């Protein structure tokens, strides 16, 4: 079995403007989706959500603020999924509710150091 990092990207600033009911129904969709992965015993790490603000540090101590207005999609969270192949992991990623708000999932195999 291999571990795959799922990175969720979306326009979270736009997303946060939605109505409380919509946000609540999105939360349920996320919980049901991740619960479904866990029910298959394929959730290696339930991960975390990431706050919207941030800092980017570049050579020469150049620090810039986030959210990163120039890019519409920002990283909103991650989980780790355990499957045999990357195709199986990608299949699971197809059920993610992030697409409803126009986001994407990046699936990356974790190479253990």
């Amino acid at each position, binding site marked *: 079995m291999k571990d795959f990092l799922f990175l969720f990207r979306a326009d979270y600033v736009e997303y946060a403007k939605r109505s409380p009911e919509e946000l609540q129904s999105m939360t349920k969709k996320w*919980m049901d989706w*991740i*619960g479904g992965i866990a*029910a*298959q015993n394929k*959730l290696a790490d339930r991960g975390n959500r990431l706050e919207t603000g941030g800092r980017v540090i570049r050579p020469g101590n150049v620090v810039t603020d986030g959210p990163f207005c120039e890019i519409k999609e920002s990283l909103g969270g991650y989980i780790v999924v355990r499957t045999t192949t990357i195709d199986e992991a990608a299949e699971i990623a197809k059920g993610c509710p992030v697409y409803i708000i126009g986001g994407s999932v990046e699936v990356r195999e974790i190479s253990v150091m």
Partner: protein
Amino acid sequence: MKQSDLLPHLFRTEYSKIIAVLCNHFGIDYIEIAEDIVSDTFLTATELWGMKGIPENPTAWLYTVAKNKTRNYLKRHNLFEKKIINDLKNQPIDTGADIDLSTTAIADSQLAMIFTVCHPSVSKEAQIALALNLLCGFGVQEIADAFLTNRETIYKRLKRAKEKLREEQILITPPSVQMVEERMDAVLTTLYLLFNEGYYSVSGHHPVKEECCMEAMRLCYLLLENTLTATPAANALMALMCFHASRFEARTSPEGENILYEDQDTRLWNKELIEKGLFYLDHSASGNHITKLHLEAGIAYWHTHPEDTREKWEAILQLYNKLLMLEYAPVAALNRTYALAKANGTEEAIIEAEKLQLTDNHFYFVLLGTLYSSKDPAKARDLFLTAQQTAKSENDKLLIQKKLDELKDIR
């Protein structure tokens, strides 16, 4: 209570109490001596009560006899040690010390024993066997029945565990802050498994089974009486057990058959226990650490609502989602999928159920069969038949037969 029932009953309730007090008094090196003294006490009771009739206060009688036997043992032992053995380092307490069998002393001793039994040097399964033996007064045969194994296995398991406690020189002391930190999880798991052992396995009104549950609750209550051990998780466990136990009456027919949750007469649910469960559930809601026990208590709470509402199943689904994210268990995965069907509809649940692939578990096929029942009765029938072939116990096969019969009614 009939005269013939009295002694087994007292054995169950008093044996472990006297053992705990004596172990506390002598230390872990003398578990077997404590067991001998208490067994001997009950043997004397059997002989004398048969001839002379039952004393006015049987419990007090047992305590007095146990105390006397202990005193006699210590006298003899002291004499022996003084005359024959020079090394008196391990000499037990002098004969003057009195054995305290007051309610408080019993509670303190048993609490100390729970933490002794759950010492990390003892394996999980041995911890439960030890708890049943030393804390609940179950005999080797009864424990073997509960574990669905033979006497020999349990006998060896207990012997090894007791040797281990002796080797490690575990002190029997009231739980300290450090002990609570290190062993509380094991203590709660042991009580949880003890309860489940009684609640879920084998059919019928097996007296040992229900007493397993009662004992787990009694021991949990001891934890809640002590400020150090009355943790949020301990309260959650107590709530969970109260909610489950509220269905004791309703879940077994007079013929001893299991009755499924949805077929139970809800008037038989014990309201008092549900109230108690709520009380402990409230108390479990402190601190910021949500444990498996909290989530399971939450699920059990919703199951005390007989109404089949959307709100109920949505709440149960979300609790199962969280439970599975904390720790995977096949039974949780199956129950989660059932809740999903109730909350989000069967279509979605069938897709999710087929992903589980728990093909060695007959409940998996029962679940699938149930989900297909109205959509595709022929397929449901096949699934129930597969479930019946996969099931091991007669009782489970019988329950699946009922599902098959109900299916015929639909068509």
